[in-house]
């Protein structure tokens, strides 16, 4: 079982409840904005504590009545909608941020291979502020992969991109799915994206 999620999350005076179990590959959390998709991802990453339930990923229990693993020990590769590169570090230092903090975890890809895989060799000395939206999202994906994640959480990673870039990043996500055997939870409100990428769909609408 990749994701075994059954949680209640309190967010802005509202209670969001969800329950799903999925197999390997890409699971899409699909629903309109305001359905609580991002809150669910934050809860799985440990950035938000649920009020009840359990979070089990790849048979590791991350949260239940007696367990609450800290975010930095959950090893989730979180790809944010708003990218969140560290603006005081250049691209190479951003990529190495998680790599240097993975502890004893076995890397799933080394630095040079990640750079080649993502096609970002020419960007290494650049500052995040000078990157285009597509370039920045590639760097963010590389940063997450290099942190040796056990699973990936993607929160509408295509939102800030134009059509051509969207296609590129979607292709990249498919290659990540095929090359690494990481469970991926992909949040989107776009039916076309979901039907192209998802092996499982959790409909929140």
């Amino acid at each position, binding site marked *: 079982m990749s994701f075994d999620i059954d949680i209640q999350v309190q967010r802005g005076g509202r209670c969001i409840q969800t329950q799903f179990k999925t197999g390997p590959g890409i699971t899409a959390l699909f629903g309109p904005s305001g359905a609580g998709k991002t809150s669910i991802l934050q809860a799985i990453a440990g950035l938000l504590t649920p009020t009840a339930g359990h979070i089990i990923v790849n048979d590791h229990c991350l949260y239940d009545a007696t367990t609450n693993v800290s975010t930095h020990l959950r090893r989730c590769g979180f790809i944010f909608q708003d990218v969140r*590169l560290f603006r005081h570090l250049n691209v190479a230092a951003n990529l190495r941020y998680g790599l240097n903090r993975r502890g004893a975890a076995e890397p799933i890809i080394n630095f040079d291979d990640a750079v080649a895989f993502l096609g970002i060799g020419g960007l290494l000395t650049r500052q995040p502020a000078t990157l285009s939206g597509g370039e920045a999202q590639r760097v963010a994906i590389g940063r997450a992969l290099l942190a040796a994640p056990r699973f990936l959480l993607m929160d509408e990673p295509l939102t800030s991109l134009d059509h051509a870039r969207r296609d590129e990043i979607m292709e990249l996500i498919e290659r990540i799915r095929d090359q690494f055997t990481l469970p991926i939870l992909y949040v989107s409100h776009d039916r076309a994206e979901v039907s192209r990428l998802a092996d499982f769909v959790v409909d929140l609408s």
Partner: protein
Amino acid sequence: MLLTTDEWAIVALSLRVSLVAVGFMLPIAFALAWVLARTHFVGKVLLDALVHLPLVLPPVVTGWLLLILFGNTSPVGHALMAWFGFSFIFRWTGAALAAAIMALPLMVRAIRLSLEAVDPRLENAARTLGATPWDSFFSITLPLALPGVLAAIVLGFARSLGEFGATITFVSNIPGETQTLPLAIYSALQTPNGDAMAVQLSLISIGLSLGALIVSELLMRRASKAEQTRVV
């Protein structure tokens, strides 16, 4: 500019008092700024007001309050003397304490502004990449807030150099011990034929303060430039 030994001693004392004041107050100012920028609790308005009090009170009142609090007959002053054999009264350390208290609001303001400009979502991103809360503070929050911290140091230093009212009330005007630049200028002006020395010391004051303000302005400009080129 040629200075006499006495004048050099005054400048050296002023620099020592200001550096100690800023060094002592910086961690406290940072902690207060962090609490004001990042936390919510009942009574936060009161804490904010207390921090700003030295900015709006007549400095003489601040000095007098310090005297009441740390004077040798007060419980705190008595305890300091009994346990550590230490007293602020009539000592340069008292001048440093007065300067530190007067610099506090300016330092907190500068640091608080820069902390508020740091996006907590970046800290969350760092946490998902394996950083502990302290690690994310030192690798993300602090470097991003650094221009504000540097500005706080410079502003606090300049404010300490200029401190007069609280110092003279709290620790008096003792040459070689508590007589910093502004107090020495005041004394020179009270002395017959002291004008030349007052001019000399005033010029030094102007030079030091101007230098500090220019450095702080440059730091602020760099910080706001970094803000404009903020990442997607």
